[in-house]
């Protein structure tokens, strides 16, 4: 069972329970914002075969997206959540999870909308200056990749080294390559949990890139991540009459 427990700091931490008697440790507060679904990719967790997870709404959305990408073929997942009234809900089937997510589909946070609005109000040169300043701070720790439940490739593109596809050193051009590539690989798959932006040790709003991608994909193709178990990934499909205005 994966849930949250208290720690010495104010922030609740993930906890992994194997015995029923340990259940007393579990807590659920407003501060339980982290996306626990990232642990479901770890082999030491998966070998348990039967796994329970206490999910907040972002985690539920991540679970729907991961199921649509067929990532839980070998484990039996039991999903619990706590709703706004503080009641603990146990989902009987994965379809029930999907229905709950669709009924309570989270909107973009106020902060995200405000920041995106601010960036869109800048001129192109000002936006370039903003992002290159941000990426100058990036130390290539790949924490954004580590915490993302959608970044589960056993070998990431950055590991492609014949030729070295993405520059390794933490210099602005290489950082630009990394973040652009990551945003494209997550476009339409990111479920907006905001973990990447929260975890960045140098405060880069990494999540804004993928949030913007999701907005664009919804606007252009009407697709949403983490919405349906069947999945609807915009870059996998196409319509013969997709419209664009920039191809000569």
């Amino acid at each position, binding site marked *: 069972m994966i849930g949250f427990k208290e720690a010495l700091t104010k922030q609740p931490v993930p906890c992994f329970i194997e015995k029923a008697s340990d259940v007393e440790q579990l807590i659920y507060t407003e501060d339980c914002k982290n996306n626990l679904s990232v642990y479901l990719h770890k082999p030491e967790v998966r070998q348990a075969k039967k796994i329970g997870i206490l999910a907040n709404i972002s985690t539920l959305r991540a679970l729907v997206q991961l199921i649509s990408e067929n990532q839980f073929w070998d484990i039996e997942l039991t999903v619990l959540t706590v709703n706004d009234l503080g009641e603990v809900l146990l989902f009987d089937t994965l379809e029930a999870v999907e229905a709950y997510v669709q009924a309570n589909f989270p909107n973009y946070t106020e902060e995200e909308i405000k920041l995106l609005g601010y*960036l869109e109000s800048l001129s192109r040169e000002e936006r370039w200056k*903003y*992002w290159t300043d941000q990426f100058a701070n990036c130390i290539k720790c790949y924490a954004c990749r580590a915490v993302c439940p959608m970044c589960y490739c056993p070998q990431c593109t950055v590991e492609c080294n014949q030729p070295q596809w993405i520059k390794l050193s933490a210099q602005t051009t290489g950082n*630009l390559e990394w973040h*652009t590539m990551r945003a494209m690989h997550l476009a339409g798959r990111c479920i907006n949990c905001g973990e990447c932006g929260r975890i960045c040790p140098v405060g880069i709003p990494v999540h804004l890139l993928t949030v913007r991608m999701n907005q664009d994909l919804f606007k252009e193709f009407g697709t949403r991540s983490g919405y349906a178990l069947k999945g609807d990934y915009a*870059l996998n499909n*196409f319509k013969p009459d997709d419209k664009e205005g920039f191809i000569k």
Partner: protein
Amino acid sequence: MQSMSDFEPKIVAFVCNWCTYAGADLAGTSRTQYAPSVRIVRFPCTGRIDFMLLMKAFENGADGIIVSGCHPNDCHYTSGNFHARRRWIVFRSLLDFIGFDTDRITFSWVSAAEGKKWATLVNEVTEHIQAKGPFTDLDKLDFIQLKEQYDEAITK
């Protein structure tokens, strides 16, 4: 018409083998005169063009980029250009959000019979990039370049 500067832009063209490359070849065999600024990179299909290649072209000295392939419904591999089109829509939006100058990238459909269109396209893009000037957004970003400039300034 004399160009404003004698800046010779470097245009990299990512083209599909079956349509645009053949179209460019036709422009050549028809002895059509067009700007010598373009360097053509041949792909089996536009669907194979990795979006990072566009960024890497700029990093390696390109001033402008052309991406061109078969018209919709005419792809040699049936649907490669459809997937490419979706990818371009998304990537272009991302580049614009980051503040990259998407005006330097031109996308087009050029078929194997459109040699003239290819020549016109290259001429247009060359003129456009000449007017915009060389691509300098990626200069002075990395420490090594900054250090060189610093050292140069110190020794003056």
